[in-house]
Every structure is written in structure tokens, then in C-alpha cells.
């Protein structure tokens, strides 16, 4: 459970971009299935952490795209969320994972001056 630290990292990233102390209305994230971040746990603590830092109590919305995977057996490209499952075409686990580690702040909605 490291989502408290992740929440702090998110807010540091946002403050770097929009200026320290900017009050936030909404924060939109992109979280991949290999990021090691639990969206539920993050939603649970995020608003609290933002309030503690004096940034308001923003709503958190999270996009959770599947990972993009390339099958090294039959060459097909597919989307993966469950890494127990192999290629949908040939079943192979021989694969290259192209994306899925991302944890990115996409956009925010800030209080207008």
C-alpha cells in the first residue's frame, strides 16, 4: 500500500506544472496495469492528501488503459490486463510488453483567478 506516497508524487508533479499552492478541482490520471498502482487505494486517499497540502479537495478520475503486447510466437499485437492470459490467437506467453507501466498526470482543472 504505497498510494499515499503516490498521491504525494502526483501533487508534486502538478505543483511543478501549475505552481505551488494552486487549488485543484479535478485531477485526471492514466494508470497502466503494470504500474503497481491500485486505482481504488489511490481514490481512497487522494482527496485527503490534497487537502493536507492546502490544494483543495479535487475529484480524481482515472483512465486505466490495457497494456499493448506483441506476441513473439505468431506476431499478433493485442491488449492485455491479465498477465496470466497468453496471446488471444495462439495462447503463447512468449511476448514483448510494449506499454503498461505508465502512471501519468494527464490534465487538471484548476481554480480560476
Amino acid at each position, binding site marked *: 500500500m504505497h498510494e499515499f506516497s503516490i498521491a504525494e508524487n502526483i501533487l508534486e508533479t502538478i505543483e511543478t506544472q501549475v505552481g505551488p499552492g494552486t487549488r*485543484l478541482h479535478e485531477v485526471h490520471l492514466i494508470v497502466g496495469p503494470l*504500474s503497481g498502482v491500485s486505482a481504488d487505494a489511490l481514490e481512497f486517499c487522494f482527496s485527503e492528501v490534497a487537502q493536507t497540502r492546502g490544494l483543495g479537495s479535487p475529484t480524481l478520475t482515472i483512465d486505466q488503459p490495457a497494456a499493448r503486447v506483441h506476441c513473439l510466437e505468431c506476431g499478433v499485437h493485442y491488449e492485455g490486463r491479465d498477465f496470466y492470459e497468453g496471446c488471444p490467437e495462439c495462447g503463447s506467453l512468449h*511476448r514483448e510488453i510494449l506499454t503498461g507501466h505508465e502512471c501519468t498526470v494527464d490534465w*487538471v482543472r484548476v481554480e480560476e483567478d
Partner: protein
Amino acid sequence: MSEGGKKVAVKSPVMLKNDAIAAENRRLLEGKGILTVNLIGSPGCGKTTLLEAMAKHFGEAMVAIEGDLQTRRDAERVEQAGCQAYQIETHGRCHLDAQAVAEALEHLDLSAGTCKLLVIENVGNLVCPSGYDLGEHLKIGVLSVPEGDDKVLKYPSLFSRVAVFLVGKIDLAPHLDFDAARAEAECRSLNPNVIGFRLSAKTGEGVAAFCRFLEGEQTARFG
């Protein structure tokens, strides 16, 4: 749903600040020709026992940073095995971050030119440390035989990122139903370029081969 306010594109990785500090750590260590590895595995998988065995191989050419929630026990063990060690106590945090390592580096004597290898033993955990770059050259994942051969695909955020996959406590394999080939194949399925070693820090099996691999990596990078 909040509708008010001005929308601003950010498009920045959440780890931006951590990654910048990690890059600085890496630059500092590379300037001294030190290969740095980030050792990650469950509590009790044998990370510290492996470090003790490595300390006997490398002596003062190795330096360790130990991450734990509490106590200096691990640093004391590694020091007794013959190398310099610094303990980070995270007081509840389940992982190390680049800032904690930057502070630890200030406490270590890396000036002598004798140090070739820094081993950072992360907090025992298969999830939380995986996303934090500390400034290492290699992430090393440890899975020990008693944990079961099915764990790799249960913790893909870690095992998809490791450069080296260690199967530890291999001396227990005859007593337990652990299929090392399965665990290694599943790690390769997340990461086709991973390099594997099977070892036992207790009996010494495989430890020398692993240490020679690290020596080769250090030489290849820093001559």
C-alpha cells in the same frame, strides 16, 4: 463530478521528481565507476543473507544500503560480513525512493576508489518498490523456493521490470514442489531479455556465478 475551473494539460509522469533525483544519483555513482543494483523481493526471501554471501566475495569493493521499516539489524549483519553499509529506516514507508538513497549516499565513503558495487536492498515487498527508480543500473528480483513458483505472474509490475531474476534458497528445491524452470519462463514472458540465476546463499551454490556476472557488468560499463 467537479465541472468548474480551467483545464490545464499536464502530461507528466507521476515519478518526474523522483526520476530526476534518481538520474542525479546515477550520474554521481557512474562518476565513481560504481555499478548499482536495486535488490527487490519479499520479506524473508533471503536478500540480506545473499548480501552477506556477496560481502564475503567482494569485501570492501562492495557497499550496501539497507532499507527497512525499522531497526539497523540488516546493516549490522552486512557490516559484520565485511563491507560498509548504511541503514535507511523508512518508519512505515513500504519502499525506498530516490531522495532516501541520495541522503544515504552522503553517509557512505565512496571516495577511496575501491568501491565497485553498490547494492541497495529495498524494503521487503513485491509491489511498491517496483515503480521507484533509485538511480540503479539493474533491478534484481528475488523469488525464493518456499514462496512458490506461481508468484511471478501475480506480481507483474515488478517482474516485468527486472534485468536479473534470482531463484533463491535453491537448496530447498528437493523438499518443495517448486518448478524453477516455470518461474523463469514466466519471468521471460513478461521480459524476454531477463537473465536468470539459481542460487543458495546458505550453501553458496550459484553465488560465485552471480557475483562474476556483476563483475562483468561493472567492467563492461566502467572498464
